[in-house]
């Protein structure tokens, strides 16, 4: 692959990004869920997680799933708008 200036500058920035982040993460470890208040919905890892997980998603996030169905419809319409060809012109 061609070694040019953009490659080198990009690699330096990426490594710098990761180094800064590792520094921050080691100084102040991430306070996971420190501010969480509700713990009643957690599932035990020893039980059968699969069906319970999807049951949780359908009862609480049903609205979001219907919205995602419309996103898929819009993506199909977008692909149609860009790639459809008018080969057979129906004459009226």
């Amino acid at each position, binding site marked *: 692959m061609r070694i040019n200036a953009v490659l080198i500058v990009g690699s330096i920035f990426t490594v710098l990004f990761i180094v800064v982040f590792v520094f921050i993460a080691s100084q102040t470890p991430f306070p996971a869920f420190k501010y*969480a208040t509700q713990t009643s919905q957690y599932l035990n890892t020893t039980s059968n997680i699969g069906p319970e997980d999807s049951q949780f998603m359908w009862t609480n996030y049903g609205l979001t799933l219907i919205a995602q169905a*419309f*996103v898929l419809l819009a993506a199909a319409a977008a692909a149609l708008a860009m790639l459809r060809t008018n080969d057979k012109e129906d004459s009226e």
Partner: protein
Amino acid sequence: MFTLPLDILLIFTAISPVIGWVTPKYNRSKIGGVFSAIALSVSGIALYSLYKEVSVKGAIYVTGNSLIAGYLKVDMLSIFMVSIFLGLGLAATIYSMEYVENSSRSPIYYTLILSMISGMVGIVFSGDLFTLYVFWELMSISSYALVAFFREKWESVEASLKYLIIGVAGSATALFGISLLYGLAGTLSFEGLATAFTGTANIWLYIAAIFIFVGFGVKAAIVPLHTWLPDAHSSAPSTISALLSGIVIGTGVFVIARTFFSAFASIQEQWFPVIAILSLLTMFLGNITALLQTDLKRMLAYSSIAQVGYMLVGIAVGTQTGLTGTFLQFFNHALMKGSAFLCAGAIIHQLSVRELKDMVGVGRRMPITAVVFSISLFALIGLPPFNGFISELTLVTSTFQANMAWLGVALILNAALSAAYYLQIIRVIMQKPTLESVQKAKETPLLMLIPICALAVFIVAFGIWPDPIVSFAQHAAGTLVPGGLL
């Protein structure tokens, strides 16, 4: 399901490809336009009844208000934003009945416009960050396809590719920020986040704030994340330019305001100056670069960047007056910039040229279009009898009240600077026509003329009698600031 306006829009979106089967080819575009206009009007009527309910109750929650569920929350701010979405969408739909040719692809155009508007309505109605993200993606995907709709022109495709890459990178960055917030708080509803973070200032909160600001700021065209905007807004079809410039940009500003005033309210002292400096940068860069342009639509696109800078001034101030100014500026900018882009599109449609020097004197041949264009350009500068003056006055007053007078002075300077290129446009179209192509130009067709005139009537009316809109915006802004009058 969802609330009634959103339901109506989504159902009409799902039905509209059927138009392509049942209509003959020669007026497919007009029937599609009528269908979309019916959808938007019925949704507007449903919105009015929702407004009555919200002004009594304060806020409506759809399917519960728990910390772990996805739900919709309708309050005064949402209804304020949706009213302008539906209004501008209706104008753009009636305009595109004449603008989009009849082909087998025109029903898909109306499907995509309806899905973009329903995505925007979903964004302002959502009560937690993840529902907001899903509707954000709905709006974004429709807009990427709409910019590339006239696919025979190379400039539309190139602009759409640039817009898509930068826009999706922004959405993914925002998703990363949302995941950091989830890790900190365990919940993603706005009210849950507001109560979880009161009084804390962890470094991880700052990092999440940076990611979310950069992610949603890409769509709001904040400098230095604005590089997609001049290409996308100038190469898209004119109705799509009007919709993108008018309301899609404002949705980015809305999401930033909503997130930063609920989840990051505890670190306000740190990010108010940052947003103030970014708004300064945005205003100056937008106005100065617009002075150097020769293409009409590109000049209007750069002025949109400057207007976003004005909107950020209100967020940087942070009081209720400042937020009233922001949302009022968004409302007025949608009307003014929408009508400016539609007029520019009418001129370009009749003349088939885009450079300003090829349009000399076109105002003499297309008088109604020229008058409406002048009205919207005067309103964009901020002259008194039009509505741009009211919102800029509110913003400047709020900066003086909050001891940030340098922002107010910068805003006045920028309004004066922007007058330079707006007046240049008016001067060019009002001279004597000398070119052959200009002298043969005819007035715009009736279906394109009606929405332009309607928008101009609203610009003048809200400038002379601003009280209902200002009080509406004040109630809307009061939902974000704690203790504001609702």
